[in-house]
C-alpha cells in the first residue's frame, strides 16, 4: 500500500543518449498505472528505475513519500514480473515463490502458509513440486505472479508480462491481473506496448513517446480527448484517421457539383461566399468547415465515421469524398480502407459492409466527433 511519485526523472546513459527526458507521474495508492508507448519510448527504462535496476540520472523517485534514489532494489520492497518471467530454473515452483520470503528471514511455517495460500488463489497448488521447465507458458506466468504476490510488497511492477503468451491466454490473464490487483489493492506500475492491454487494465494511463509523457489520465478520457496526434494515433485500434489541413492558396470554391457540395458538408454553406481562400482545406483542395483557427490536422475515429453513397450529406457533418480500396469483414463489424485527400482513412461500419472495393462514396463525420490538432500536433478545442 503505497503511492509512487516520479519527479522530473531523467535517464542519461554513459554515451550521452537520453532515454527518459524528464518524467513526472504521481501514482495514487492502490492504483494500477499503465505506461504505454512504442518500443524505445523509455517506458521500460522508467520501470527499471522505479525497481532500482537502473540508476536515476536526475529527478527523484519516491515510494510512500520516501525518496528511494539511493536505495537498492533489495531494500525497496517491490516485486516485479518480468517479460520472460525470470523464474529460477533450478528451483521448484514452491522454492521460486519462497525464495524472496526466505531472503527476508520469514519463519518457515509462515513461508509455507503464505506460499500455499498464494498457490491456491493462482491455482498452482498441484504444480508446487514442478520445475519451471515442466510448465506451460501460462503456468510460468502464474508462478511469476505468485512470486510477486507472496511477498506482499508495497508496489508491483510488471514489465510486459503478457507479451510471451498467445492471444487467447493474454486476454484471460489480463482479466485475472486486473481482478487480482483490485483484490490485493497493491499499487502497480504496468509497462506494455499493447494499447488494448493499456486501455483495459489502467486506472491511470500514461502515454509515452520519445522519453517524454504525452498524456496522463483516465483511459477513456484519453481515448475521447487525445492531447496530441501521437496519442490519437497510438490509442485506439484501428488508430484515429488524421488528415493534414492546408491554408491559403486558391481553394476550390464549392460550386454545385455533388462532391464539392459534400466536401463542405453543409448545403447552405456551399453557396456561401464567406469561404475565403484562407480557409482550411484538405490536400485535395476541398474546404473544411468547422475548423478552429489554429487547426493544422483533422482527426476522427473510424467508429465515428459513416459512409454514404448518396449525394446528400446530413447537416452538421463533414463529408469527404473517398474511394474504397479494401473491405475487411471481421464479423460484428467491417473495416473499409478508403483513399481520401491523399491519405488512407479507415471507417468502421456495423455488420456487413455494403461497399465494395472500387466504390466511390463519401465518408461522413458529425461535427462534434471531429478532433483538431495544431501545427505542433497538440489538441485544439
Amino acid at each position, binding site marked *: 500500500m503505497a503511492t509512487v511519485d516520479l519527479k522530473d526523472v531523467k535517464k542519461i546513459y554513459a554515451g550521452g543518449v537520453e532515454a527518459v527526458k524528464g518524467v513526472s507521474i504521481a501514482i495514487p495508492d492502490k492504483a494500477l498505472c499503465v505506461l504505454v508507448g512504442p518500443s524505445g519510448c523509455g517506458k521500460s527504462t522508467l520501470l527499471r528505475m522505479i525497481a532500482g535496476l537502473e540508476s536515476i540520472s536526475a529527478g527523484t523517485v519516491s515510494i510512500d513519500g520516501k525518496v528511494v534514489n539511493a536505495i537498492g532494489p533489495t531494500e525497496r520492497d*517491490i516485486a516485479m514480473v518480468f517479460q520472460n518471467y525470470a523464474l529460477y*530454473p533450478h528451483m521448484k515452483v514452491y522454492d521460486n515463490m519462497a525464495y524472496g520470503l526466505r531472503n527476508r528471514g520469514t519463519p518457515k511455517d509462515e513461508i509455507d502458509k503464505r506460499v500455499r495460500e498464494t498457490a491456491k488463489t493462482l491455482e498452482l497448488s498441484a504444480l508446487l513440486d514442478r520445475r519451471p*521447465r515442466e510448465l506451460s507458458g501460462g503456468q510460468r506466468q502464474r508462478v511469476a505472479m505468485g512470486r510477486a504476490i507472496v511477498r506482499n510488497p508495497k508496489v508491483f511492477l510488471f514489465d510486459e508480462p503478457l507479451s510471451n503468451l498467445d492471444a487467447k491466454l493474454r486476454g484471460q490473464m489480463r482479466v485475472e491481473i486486473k481482478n487480482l490487483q483490485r483484490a490485493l489493492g497493491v499499487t502497480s506500475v504496468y509497462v506494455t506496448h499493447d494499447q488494448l492491454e493499456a486501455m483495459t487494465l489502467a486506472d491511470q494511463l500514461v502515454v509515452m513517446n520519445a522519453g517524454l509523457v504525452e498524456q496522463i489520465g483516465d483511459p477513456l478520457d484519453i481515448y475521447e480527448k487525445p492531447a496530441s496526434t501521437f496519442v490519437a494515433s497510438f490509442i485506439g485500434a484501428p488508430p484515429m484517421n488524421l488528415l493534414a489541413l492546408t491554408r491559403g492558396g486558391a481553394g476550390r470554391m464549392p460550386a454545385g457539383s455533388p462532391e464539392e457540395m459534400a466536401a463542405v458538408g453543409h448545403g447552405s454553406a456551399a453557396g456561401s461566399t464567406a469561404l475565403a481562400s484562407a480557409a482550411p482545406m484538405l490536400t485535395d483542395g476541398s474546404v473544411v468547415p468547422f475548423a478552429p483557427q489554429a487547426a493544422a490536422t483533422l482527426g476522427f475515429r473510424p467508429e465515428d465515421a459513416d459512409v454514404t453513397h448518396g449525394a446528400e450529406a446530413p447537416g452538421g457533418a463533414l463529408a469527404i469524398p473517398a474511394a474504397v480500396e479494401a473491405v475487411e469483414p471481421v464479423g460484428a463489424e467491417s473495416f473499409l480502407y478508403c483513399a481520401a485527400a491523399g491519405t488512407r482513412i479507415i471507417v468502421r461500419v456495423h455488420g456487413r459492409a455494403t461497399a465494395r472495393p472500387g466504390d466511390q462514396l463519401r465518408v461522413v463525420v458529425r461535427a462534434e466527433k471531429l478532433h483538431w490538432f495544431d501545427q505542433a500536433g497538440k489538441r485544439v478545442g
Partner: protein
Amino acid sequence: MSPRVVFPNKILPYLLLAPQLAITLVFFYWPASQALYQSMLREDPFGLKSQFVWFDNFARVLADPNYLNSVRVTAVFSIATAAVAMVTALLLAVMADKVIRGRGLYRTLMIWPYAVAPAIAGMLWLFLFNPSIGTLAYGLRWLGIAWNPLLDGGDAMVLVVAAASWKQISYNFLFFVAGLQAIPKTLIEAAAIDGAGPTKRFWTIVFPLLAPTTFFLLVVNTVYAFFDTFGIIHAVTGGGPGKATETLVYKVYNDGFVNLILGDSAAQSVILMVIVIALTAIQFRYVEKKVHYG
C-alpha cells in the same frame, strides 16, 4: 519426441561410421588389449622370452608399498590440482564478468597460459622456484620460509600442483566465463528484487546454474590431473624427491621405460585405466543427478 529418421539404405550408416570405428579400434582398443595381455606376461631380464603368469603382476603391484604410495600421491595431487584450478578460475571468471572496460584484453591475457606446453610450464615454475637459481625462491627464503622442493616432498608437491593448476586455470576460466554469460541477467535482477544480496545471489542462483559447467570441468580436470600432467612432473621433479611426487602415470613410465619392468608397468596401466573409467562413471552417475540443466 522428434520423429525417427529412417535411412532406406542398410549399409550406408555402417560405412559412415566405419572410419570413426576404425580409428577407435586401431588406436584405442588394440593398444588397450595389448596392455591387458602384456600385464599378464613376465619377461626374462634379457627380453628373450616371456611367460604367461595370469594375475601375478597385479598381485605384486598391489602389494608393493611404493605403488600404494603412488596411489596416495596421485589422490593428493589430483584433488589439489582440480580444486585449485577450478576455484581460482571461478574467482577470476566472476571478476572478469564485472569488468566492463578492457574486458576483451583481460580475457585474452587470461587465456595465454593454456598455450604453453606442459613441460615448458614446468620449466617456468622451476626457474622461479628452484632453491638455487629461482627468483621467487630467493624471495621466499628472504621471508624466512624454508623452501626447498628438491629436498622437501611437501614443497615439491606444492610446486607441481601450482604448475599443473596454473596451466589449467585458463581453460577452466574460459568455460566459467561462458557459463556466467549464459545466465540470464533478469534472473540476477529478479533475485536482487527478491531481497538477495550479492553473496547470496552467487550461492543461491549463479553457482547452481553454473553446475553443468562445473561438472563438466570436474571431469576434464580429473582426467587432466591424472594423465596430462606427466610433462610437468617430469620437468619439475622427475617424481622426486624420494617418490614424493610420483603419480601413477609417472610410475608407469618409470617402471616400464626406465626400469624396464614391462609386466608390472602394463599391470599398473590397466589398473589406471580401471580407476579412470570408474571415476568417470561415478561422476556421471551420481554428480550429474544433482546438476540442473536449465
